[in-house]
Every structure is written in structure tokens, then in C-alpha cells.
């Protein structure tokens, strides 16, 4: 059973459209991270959210951490082809605080 569930699994949109990706869990996390991964590369950290209700903005990307710290969302405004990639949410678990990942959202932005 996946501790972090992401939806949708696949998303294909036209350039200029807006989109939201969701990351949900039945467990409380001390923090959640969002990564973007391109083919043949490792995940690259986009943001870490720590406080329940927190909203962080990174240019056209807006990240929100749920009040109960069990869910998070990533909203992209006016998507561009360069936003194409696999978006992953992850949170620390266990005594070693290793990261557990969601199954990912594969985003394709068509020109």
C-alpha cells in the first residue's frame, strides 16, 4: 500500500492551461517535498512545505500543505512545454527519516 497517493497519474494539457496535482495520505507528515524528474535524470527538489496550511510560490508554481499535514497540492499556472516531467511528492518516514515517494504524476504540456 502506497503511503502517499498522487493524482492524476497522467496529465496531458495544452500550453497556457492551468493544472493541479494532488498528493494525499491518511498519515500525518512533519513535512512534504515536491520533486520534478526528467527522463534519464534524478529527481530535483522544487520545494519543502513544513507548516500546516502553508502556501509557497515558485514563479508559476504554487504549493500548498494541508491544515492537517496529510495532503499537499501543486498548482501550475499557464503551463509551458518546459514544465513537462514526472512530478513526485515525498515525505520523511521511519527513524532514519528516509523519503517515501508517491507514485508520481506524468505531466505533458503540448505546444
Amino acid at each position, binding site marked *: 500500500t502506497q503511503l502517499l497517493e498522487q493524482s492524476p497519474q497522467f496529465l496531458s494539457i495544452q500550453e497556457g492551461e492551468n493544472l493541479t496535482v494532488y498528493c494525499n495520505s491518511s498519515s500525518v507528515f512533519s513535512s512534504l517535498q515536491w520533486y520534478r524528474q526528467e527522463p*534519464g535524470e534524478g529527481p*530535483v527538489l522544487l520545494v519543502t512545505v513544513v507548516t500546516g496550511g502553508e502556501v509557497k510560490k515558485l514563479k508559476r508554481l504554487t504549493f500548498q500543505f494541508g491544515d492537517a499535514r496529510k495532503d499537499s497540492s501543486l498548482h501550475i499556472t499557464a503551463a509551458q512545454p518546459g514544465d513537462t516531467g514526472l512530478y513526485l511528492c515525498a515525505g520523511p518516514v521511519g527513524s532514519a527519516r528516509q523519503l517515501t515517494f508517491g507514485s508520481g504524476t506524468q505531466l505533458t504540456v503540448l505546444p
Partner: protein
Amino acid sequence: DAGVTQSPTHLIKTRGQQVTLRCSPKSGHDTVSWYQQALGQGPQFIFQYYEEEERQRGNFPDRFSGHQFPNYSSELNVNALLLGDSALYLCASSLDFGYTFGSGTRLTVV
């Protein structure tokens, strides 16, 4: 400042063989974690090494083993390879839980 370096980048092995993957952590990082990522899926935690000891292990069989050296670099060994072991193997180094990932080793088992 070099990030996380993994070698080799690609590898093809035959079922039943053994493989060793290598990872050099980011400068200043003392902890190395290994992940297995199937195509289009999120990475799955294999194990984490700190101070040359395995600190935590995920749900992977004993065929998967590792080592960390005094310079913090690490190796992942997989014995008796199965077709299902084909995946991208990612190394992540960290210091105080801030993770940096390498580009991975693409392992294909035929």
C-alpha cells in the same frame, strides 16, 4: 561543488549475474540512501547508510546489499539478478535530511 555522482550510467546484465553500482555523495554529505525506480513510478527505498552502517532498510530481499566507505561513498550490490530488477537505481546523499539525488544507473537485466 560536485553533486551526487553515480556510475555506471547504464548497465546490461544477464539473469543470475551479480552487479555493483557506485555512488559518490555531494561534498559535505555523510548519509547515502539507495532507491529503485521502475519506469513512470516513484522511487522505492532500498536502504540507507550512515557512519558505514546500514541504518534503515526497505522491503527488499537480502539479494540487495550495500556498503559505505570511510569517505562516505557507497556501493549497492545485487546478487542473482532477476528480470524484475531492471530499473533506474538512484543514490541520494544527505546531511540533516536535505536530500540530493544523482542521475541514476539504468540497469537492464536480460
